[in-house]
Structure formats: structure tokens, C-alpha cells
């Protein structure tokens, strides 16, 4: 017994660090492997591509396409809107900076489900938006936003905006303001300074935020499910349908792998796009 205790004390670093690594292996690597293996294995015929072949339908392609487009557009919209906001907070806000940053973090404390639920109060037929527009006589009939793709887009944009703002903000904060001074001293005007100094150096934050939002938007389950009245499948809702409702695990795994692959390909394209942007601006 004594030797074991001594051995533990001796190699305590190994002993203590094991759990974290075991966690990764057991709960990340093994499940991912199971998914991949399950997509190729059928109880009756062994190794097979049949589950993947089932996915080569117009329906599946449309669903994947829809989620991709939604994810990309959402990330793009978030980026375009976030960038000026972060620019303002970082460079122009001075006195209000602390308050503005605090106000940014507060929405995180409200569960995103509750956010989506709150949007019903605004977008519904008898909701705030319609009431305001009707009373201002801008429209004569209530506009129909809820239970449609428009509602999904709005709520997703709203939900992921903070996730784009924060990485950008972190990068902006690391930005050395003296570089702007230096650039102006060297003769560049404001616009040139922005495009040739500020923008390229903050691009890494934009990239991070973009990938974060795009990746999360792609697999999103709740917002599409709640806001579209269950009329359309997205990647997240279809995977849930396969695994929870109809329990077709093998096809579901194949679809999961396929979606992950498709997302990866899109990410690659966006990565190349950012590279080109960086080069172009230089």
C-alpha cells in the first residue's frame, strides 16, 4: 500500500491532470466518433453508405442550403451593424464607455428563450409593432411577421448581435491608439487611416465574431422552431426530429455528419474570403 501512496505523490501531476483529459476523451472524442461510426453502420448489413445515400434528396439539400444562407446572412448582418457600434464605444464614447459595455452584457443574463418569447409580444398580430404602425396609420391591416422566415431572421439577428460585438470589442480594446496618431502624422487623412490601419488590425476580431455567430446560427434549434410555427425544417430542427421524435439514429447521424461537413466547407470559404479582404485592403 505504501508504494502506491508514494507513487501517487510522486506522479501527482499526472494523477491530477487525468480527469480533465479523461473528460475530453470520454465526453467529446468518443461521442463524436460514435456519431461518425453510427452513420456508416447498419445492424443488418454492416458497413454501408446507404444512410448517406438517403440524404441525397432535394428536401435535404434545401434544408442545408437554408441553414447555410441563414447562418451566413445573420453573421454578415451582425458584423455590419456591430462594427460601427464597437468603433463608437471604443474610440468615441469616453465617459459613457463603462455604462455602454455594462449595458451590452446585461442581455446575456436573460435566457435567450425568454428573448424569443418576448419577441412574440412585439411581432404578433396584436403585438406592439402592429399596434404602433396601425395607430400611426402607416398600414391598414396588421402585417404578418410571426410564424415566418422574417420572424426567424429578426430574432436570430437580435440574439446573436452581442456575440459579434464582444469579440470585436476585445480586439478594439487591444488596439493601440497611437497608431492612428502616427498615421495622421504621416499624412494620411481620416478615411485612409481607417481603411489602411484600423480596419486590417481589427479584422481578426471580426473574423472571430463572424465564425462564432455563423457556427452557432447554423445549428440553431430553438429560434427557428419557435418562430416559424414548425412549418419548415432547419438543420437543428431536423436533427432533433431524427433523434428525438422519429428515433432514426443512423440517418440522423449521417445527417449530422453531413451538416458538420457543409458548415466546415462554408467556414473555409469565409476564411479565404477574409484573407482576400485583408490583402485587398492592403
Amino acid at each position, binding site marked *: 500500500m505504501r*508504494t*502506491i501512496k508514494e*507513487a*501517487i505523490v510522486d*506522479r501527482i501531476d*499526472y*494523477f491530477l491532470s*487525468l*480527469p480533465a483529459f*479523461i473528460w475530453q476523451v*470520454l465526453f467529446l472524442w468518443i461521442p463524436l466518433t460514435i456519431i461518425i461510426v453510427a452513420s456508416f453502420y447498419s445492424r443488418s448489413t454492416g458497413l454501408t453508405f446507404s444512410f448517406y445515400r438517403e440524404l441525397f*434528396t*432535394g*428536401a*435535404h439539400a*434545401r*434544408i442545408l442550403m437554408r441553414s447555410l444562407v441563414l447562418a451566413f446572412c445573420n453573421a454578415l448582418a451582425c458584423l455590419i451593424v456591430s462594427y460601427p457600434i464597437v468603433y463608437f464605444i471604443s474610440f468615441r464614447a469616453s465617459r459613457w464607455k463603462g455604462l455602454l459595455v455594462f449595458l451590452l452584457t446585461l442581455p446575456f443574463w436573460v435566457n435567450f428563450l425568454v428573448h424569443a418569447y418576448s419577441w412574440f409580444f412585439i411581432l*404578433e*398580430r*396584436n403585438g406592439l409593432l402592429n399596434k404602433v404602425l396601425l395607430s400611426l396609420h402607416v398600414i391598414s391591416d396588421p402585417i404578418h411577421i410571426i*410564424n415566418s422566415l422574417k420572424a426567424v431572421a429578426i430574432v436570430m439577428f437580435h440574439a446573436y448581435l452581442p456575440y459579434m460585438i464582444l469579440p470585436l470589442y476585445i480586439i478594439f480594446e487591444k488596439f493601440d491608439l497611437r497608431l492612428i496618431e502616427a498615421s495622421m502624422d504621416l499624412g494620411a487623412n481620416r478615411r485612409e487611416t481607417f481603411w489602411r490601419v484600423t480596419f486590417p488590425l481589427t479584422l481578426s476580431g471580426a473574423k472571430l465574431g463572424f465564425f462564432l455567430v455563423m457556427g452557432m446560427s447554423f445549428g440553431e434549434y430553438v429560434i427557428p422552431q419557435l418562430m416559424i*410555427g*414548425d*412549418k*419548415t*425544417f432547419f438543420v437543428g430542427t*431536423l436533427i432533433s*426530429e431524427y433523434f*428525438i*421524435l*422519429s*428515433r*432514426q439514429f443512423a440517418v440522423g447521424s449521417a445527417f449530422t455528419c453531413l451538416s458538420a461537413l457543409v458548415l466546415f466547407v462554408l467556414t473555409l470559404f469565409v476564411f479565404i474570403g477574409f484573407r482576400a479582404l485583408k490583402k485587398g485592403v492592403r
Partner: protein
Amino acid sequence: MNKVFVAISLYVFFPLFWLVAIAGFLYSPYLSNFFKRDQRSISIFAWSDMIDPDIIMNFERETGVKVFLNYYESNEELLAKLQFSGGAGYDLIIPSHYVVKPLIKRGFLKKIDKKSLGFWSQIDPHLLGHYYDPEDEYSIPYMWDVYGLGINRQFFADKKINKSWQMVFDPSYKYRVGMTNDIREVMDIASLYLYGRMEKLQPVQLQKVKDLLLGQKKFVEAYTDLIFDFLLTSKICPVVFMPSTALYRARRNVDWVDFILPDEGSIFNIDSFVISAKSSKDDMIYTFLNYIYKKDVIRKAYDFYGYLPPRKDLLHELNLDYLGGIDFVFGPYFEKLQLSRALVSRKQMTNLWLAIKAY
């Protein structure tokens, strides 16, 4: 040599130690269940939303028997969970009618001793003797509901109401409709509308059903399973395909909604109590059953949820005018009622949903 041996065994021992610790943590619920078994308790497996917690509390207080409620979300989950444990861990299960036959076939159920059930004679015969349990040996009908069209009377004050599924399928109507989020039910009424009563659908017929549903989708507001009454009472949809329970709930808030049973026929669901074959707590089970089928207890459940009761006496006492009265539903209309069942294979159903919802 000794040191190397010790070192190696520790590189095996260390990970093993942590693995066992983690496994112990993960499997701990089994341990607590093991201790639970000695208690005076029964375990029920039901659809969420089926049993009023108040009823359970009262039962526990009156008899001292603890009731553990477990929920399932889909019938596939029910089958999968029972498959794992072979039915052990649950005493009573409340499956939908179309799950009962698979359960019987797999040997998960125990025969019911009808003599121990004081209320058996009160069960309405229209709920007995159906295809899934012809001799009623394994299942006791508990609650049931019938599907139809919820109508906003005010909207149709100046328009004609057609007692047909056409109201929800015909694109010439300019309003939006609500549908259920269950492909089985949707297919049932689509096929009733197109072909009348069917047992199975051929591929050609399936295609026509698909075209009908795809055409309908443009004016479907939502496929839902929980907000039928809301769609109707908030005036978003003047017509909603819904179960009778939804209309009951809507009537609690407004009085300008009606329920229509179309002339082509309709579907109904029966939820039954079944006893798990692996259960050994017969006396407590029958005590519970006799309690929950008491007239006042079932009345309370009806008042709360709106599911129609199985007892003859209650059915004739309650005001079921919104259905057209029980003598209508169980009388001339009964031959047009069909237990909702799968018209095609599960895979074909999923593919149909996929085809509809991909667009």
C-alpha cells in the same frame, strides 16, 4: 524491474480510478432506484400533461403510497426506454392506443384482472374491443379525445360553414388555418378527405396526399401541438384542426368558438392504462387504478384538462354540447369515427414530413 511494473500498473490504475469514479457518479440513479423499490411506491410512465399533480398528491395522502411520475415525449422514446430495461422500473404505463399492440407483442404487458377493478362496468363500451386489444385483456381506456375543426363563429357569421375537411384544405378560402404537428393525424384527415376511410395507402394515393398537403402549406399558419386554442381565440386562424380538448380550453376563455365533426368522418385517440409485466406491486397498482377511476377524480381531471372521460355515467352527465352531445358522437357519428393509426410505414411518414417541411 519492480519499479517499472509498479509504474505501469499505476498508469493503468490512475485512469481506472477516475473512470470508476465518473461511472459511479453517472450510474448513481440506478442505485437510488434500488433503494426506492423497498418503499411503498409505484412508478407511472406517462405522456407529459396527462395526470393532474393534485390527484397524485391526494392519492399519496389518502393511501400513503408514493407515486413516481416519469414522462416520455414520443412513442418511440417509450418503446426505446422499455426495451432497455425490459419494462422494469415502471409499474403503470399510459400509452396511446397505437402503441399498445407493439407493447403486447414484445411481451412488456401483464394481463389485467378485471375483477379487481370496481369500475369496469362503468367503462363506456364504445371505447372497448378495438383492434389493438380486442378482448381488452391488457389495457383499460383512460382518457380519449376526438378531432375536428375549431371554428371562429364570428368570422363565419356571414359566410357558409361547410361541415367538411374542405374548410381546411381548400385553397379558395382566403384565411389561414392551424394544423396539428403530428404527421399521423394530418395524413389521417387528408386521406379521409380524399378517399374516405382507409386502412393503408398505396404509393399513388400517398402522392396525392402529399400534393394536397404541399398545396395547403401556403395558408397554414402553424403546425402545433399546444396552442390550438390560442390560434383560435386570438383570431389568427378562423379554422383550426384540433382535438376536442383544445376547444374545451378555448371555451373557458370565449364563447364564440364551435367544434365541427366533418361529414367525411374523423379520428379519435384513446389513452389507456397498461400494467408492466415486470411489476410485482399488484395490490398497490389496483388501489391506484380504483382511485383514479373514481367518478369525482375523473371529473376533476376532465375539468382541468378537457380530455373526455371513459365512464358512461360521467359522459351522460357532462355538458358535451360543444361536440354535438355524446349521443351524437357515440350514436350516428360513431361509424364515421376511426382510431387514428398509421396508414403507411414510419419511414414513409418521416419522409412525407420532410418533403412538406423542407419547403
